């Protein structure tokens, strides 16, 4: 059934199956900003940070007296565990056969950030707990995941993009939940001061870390 180039294509049914490999609406492109090793490094940072986040949320459940927030933290705990699982499974596909090796913080500052974020324990510190997660860390996840999704190869790295999209959807939902919880808790000037001071202290460390994957989390370092 070879193609007959002399026949009018409009009337030749044997040619009707011949189509361009990329449909006109498919504008995906090959080039991407990250090679396999760099992608694996970033994914390892994602997994480490998602793990620290789900552990913190799980641990805090018992420490918050507000029943609705207790339940939300338990719900969000699972979502970040699931993201950690997605990244854990992606690492061997990126030639890292020992996922634990790359399950690491981007740098020392990131490790210090997590230590500072998870420090509040007292039952009166719900604002501080939520600020660390929902006003500092999760916005950084949204930033790093968005940058990665928009800059990786849409063809070679499609599996990472798929996971990023799932994770991002959760991050947006969780950020909104967290912001609502915070707005409902912050009622006095003193509450405002507590929230902003804690946020500033954590932001300082996060800026030093450069984001979830270190400097370059949201673009080449100038």
């Amino acid at each position, binding site marked *: 059934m070879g193609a007959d180039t002399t026949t009018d294509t409009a009337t030749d049914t044997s040619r009707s199956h011949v189509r361009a490999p990329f449909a006109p609406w498919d504008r995906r492109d090959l080039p991407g900003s990250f090679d396999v090793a760099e992608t694996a490094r970033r994914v390892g940072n994602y997994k480490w940070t998602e*793990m620290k986040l*789900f*552990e*913190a*949320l*799980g*641990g*805090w*459940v*018992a*420490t*918050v*007296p*507000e*029943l609705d927030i*207790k*339940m*939300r*933290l*338990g*719900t969000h*705990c*699972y*979502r*970040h*565990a*699931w993201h*950690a*699982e997605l990244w*854990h499974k992606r690492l061997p596909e990126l030639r890292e056969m020992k996922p*634990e090796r790359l399950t690491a913080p981007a740098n020392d500052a990131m490790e210090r950030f997590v230590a500072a974020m*998870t*420090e*509040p*324990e007292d*039952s009166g510190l719900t604002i501080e707990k939520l600020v660390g997660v929902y006003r500092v860390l999760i916005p950084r996840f949204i930033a790093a995941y968005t940058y990665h999704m928009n800059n990786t190869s849409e063809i070679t790295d499609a599996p990472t993009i798929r996971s990023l999209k799932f994770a991002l959807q959760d991050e947006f939902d969780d950020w909104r939940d967290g912001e609502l919880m915070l707005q409902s808790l912050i009622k006095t000037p003193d509450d405002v001061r507590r929230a902003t001071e804690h946020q500033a202290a954590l932001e300082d460390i996060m800026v030093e870390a450069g984001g979830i994957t270190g400097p370059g989390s949201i673009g080449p370092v100038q």
Partner: protein
Amino acid sequence: MRQFFPVEDLARDDRFVQTNMAERMSDTRSAVDLQRTAKSRGASNRLTPDRHDASDAARSLMHGIMVGEIQALEGAGRTAHDFDAGDGSEGTIPFELKLDMARQAWDEARHVEISVKLSDWMGTEIGQFQENTVLFEAACSNDPVLRLAGVNRALEGLAIDVFTQMKEFGQLADDPFLEFCEDWMLADEVTHVKMGSDWLRRVTENDPDRRAKALDFQRVVDKLFSFGGARGESEESPIGLARRFRELAGFTDDEVDTIAGMDHDALEERKEVVRLARETADV
């Protein structure tokens, strides 16, 4: 945040009133009202809608379920937090077990949501009954395997029995809302108990002493909840033993027989205590 979190520090709003197992055990009121049973309902003491105190008993039980779910949520969250990922030795747990604990935290959060709504539906307010913190106590062990045995197998095994009873209660009371919710929670609890059974087996595969210690702890917790014969195969126990669902969750026949035996002994013990108390009173 500390690595381990003591039961005394569990955070609650002002509505909750807490008690612990020691206080509960010293309460002379029986979980099984043997006098009422003997007088009014033949041999059966099962929690069914035809009991004269059915609505109070069901409300109290639903409140107990709700606070139990809160503690199950807290316990699962703590186990996801307290141990680093590793090979299961030296205070570590496998990464996949941490993930399962996080999943359980979500499930238990839904159970709290469900039981809060059901309590409201049944006319109960939060804090109307005391909260026994025994479930979280069992989730405080420094050995994660003991947590699996005490919480996932013993206490969530009890949850299987309780939800089965409540589902039947909903059926008999023509309350499709209650029956529907218990059906869903029962499915999750079977999953959690199976999780406990599977992980206990896997983590202690090469450590028979650790497994034996965990199973001993499970028996201690099971025995605690046999107290007063509140749960058992006898019709005199308010809550039945859900053999079929326990099997689905990884309990062997022998294990269920052992629990049934403990329940039976506890019921007989309680009856003896009540008999002696009555004799003393008559004297």
